[in-house]
């Protein structure tokens, strides 16, 4: 396996306080801002690059363009009123917010969501994972100039959004997983339409495999590029496909099974080369695994039974004092909610632990050093970060 060996020949010296000694006036270095309005950026964020020639010597991530203060807003909303706003935290894959919030509230209030609701939740989460990966594959290819992949995957994602729409009643923000259960069952004929969609996605993925993963340009630019050293996993809190591509089978679905994952057959997808190509490939295979999981879920899911537990009235629902942490494996890694209650009808503190938070800040700043400017976009996309979840 290719390990990261930095070439420090062009690297500026360090000052006594650990920062780099970069004299912009010398003309040797140039400051370059990538974002927030830039086609090569994963969302509304920016990276401040200091470059020497076309090599990056220092990168600083700047976030906060999407900060809405969710953790503060939730402190002044009752438990049920928090439920519509949590999904806004992560735009392309909102369901994990709903699940983690609902599970945290259930954990503290001692409510058990019914069996059927758990299957519904697992179904939604896997569908959301497929959406997120399709979005990622389009972005990863787009960052290297392969625009056509984005056209195909966005179409496939749109078919999945149609399934979401008929099931939950909304395209992007589904607001479907209530604390205590889910809102509704499956509509009539859903299985068949889902199967058609899955087939379409599989055939799209076959094309993507041919055109993207067997593309000489894509291989040339991604193999051996942007390596995550497995030793960094614990230091930087790397989880999800980024860790799995480095050969560590970190997968919450397997390590601490939640919902119905105990009853499903799957093996975490791992890769070994830890470069951009491997990370893309791990995600592609993980997507296909999700397709398989959805088929398993639809086959095993109970079709009758309660969808929501017996709940106290949501209007004046109070939860005793306590704190908990609930996690799930989203498409980018470990997603978790840390919830503290104080016996009132409002959460005392909610902290959202999104995987993008560590990946896009500390890890990206470490990895961006000594790479070419033109590879910054590809590297950033390959970490699969969503800005709204960094700053919340």
């Amino acid at each position, binding site marked *: 396996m290719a390990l990261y060996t930095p070439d420090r020949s062009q690297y500026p010296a360090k000052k006594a306080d*650990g920062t780099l000694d970069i004299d912009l006036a010398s003309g040797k270095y140039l400051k370059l801002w990538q974002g927030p309005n830039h086609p090569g950026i994963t969302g509304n964020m920016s990276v401040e690059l200091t470059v020497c020639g076309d090599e990056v010597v220092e990168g600083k991530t700047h*976030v*906060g363009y999407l*900060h809405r*203060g969710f*953790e*503060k*807003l939730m*402190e*002044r909303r009752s438990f049920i009123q928090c439920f519509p706003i949590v999904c806004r935290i992560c735009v392309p894959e909102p369901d994990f917010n709903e699940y983690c919030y609902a599970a945290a509230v259930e*954990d503290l209030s001692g409510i058990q969501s019914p069996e059927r609701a758990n299957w519904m939740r697992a179904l939604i989460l896997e569908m959301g994972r497929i959406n997120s990966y399709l979005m990622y594959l389009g972005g990863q290819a787009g960052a290297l100039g392969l625009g056509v992949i984005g056209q195909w995957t966005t179409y496939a994602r749109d078919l999945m959004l149609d399934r979401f729409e008929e099931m939950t009643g909304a395209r992007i923000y589904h607001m479907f997983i209530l604390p205590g259960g889910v809102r509704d069952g499956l509509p009539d004929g859903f299985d068949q339409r889902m199967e058609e969609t899955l087939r379409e996605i599989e055939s799209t993925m076959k094309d993507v495999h041919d055109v993207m993963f067997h593309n000489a340009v894509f291989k040339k630019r991604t193999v051996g590029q942007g390596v995550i050293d497995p030793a960094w996993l*614990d*230091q*930087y*809190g790397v*989880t999800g496909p980024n860790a799995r591509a480095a050969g560590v089978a*970190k997968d919450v679905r397997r*390590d*601490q099974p939640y919902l119905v994952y105990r009853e499903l057959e799957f093996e975490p997808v791992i890769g070994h080369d830890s470069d951009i190509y491997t990370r893309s490939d791990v995600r592609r295979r993980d997507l296909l695994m999700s397709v398989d999981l959805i088929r398993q879920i639809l086959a095993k899911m109970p079709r009758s039974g309660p969808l929501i537990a017996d709940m106290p009235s949501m209007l004046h629902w109070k939860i005793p004092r*306590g*704190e*908990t*942490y609930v*996690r799930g494996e989203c498409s980018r890694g*470990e997603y*978790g909610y*840390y919830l*503290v209650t104080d016996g009132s009808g409002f959460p*005392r*503190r909610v*902290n959202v*632990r999104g995987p993008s*938070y*560590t990946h896009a*800040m*500390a*890890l990206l700043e*470490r990895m961006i050093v000594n790479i070419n400017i033109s590879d910054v976009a590809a590297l950033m996309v390959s970490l699969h970060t969503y800005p709204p979840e960094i*700053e919340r």
Partner: protein
Amino acid sequence: MRALHIRLQHLFPLGELTEQRPDLGFVTVPAAYLRPTLLHLRDREGYTHLVLLTAVDWLEEDLFQLTYLLSNRSTGCDIGLRVKFPRQAAHMESIHDLWPTAATYQRELREMFGIDFPGSPRLHEEFILEGWNDIPPYRRDFDTLKYARANYNDRPGRETHDPEQHMKQQLYPDGA
């Protein structure tokens, strides 16, 4: 989780264990013993993954609580270390040398709660907010609605009626 707590209690003066789930416990640690406890958990007990570092504002008790959540992948257990310290001139030892990623968390806590972590890199740079001129927004005594009303305009033309009051006025205008 219990066994771990007993092992730890031999070494450090820890508080009671709150066992939220069989695989998740929270324990209070005195601020002075935080670093050795973290090091012990990381190097001896296999709790190598820093899941999150965040703060809770207990305004009524005039305390800040920092929660360091560590995870052990091989056993699938999580332990949360709670550290409480006064809100006035709040500061805490930085752990960016144990986990480099903690520097990001500490930057956020510095900005959002006003907790100082001396020595943490880029601590005083703006992180999320830009040109913020009020008390740190995640503190409990910061009223976000009041701030929003004072700084931004709402669209006029909104008025509401309380059904009970409205009914009383309509049905019993003379206050019978």
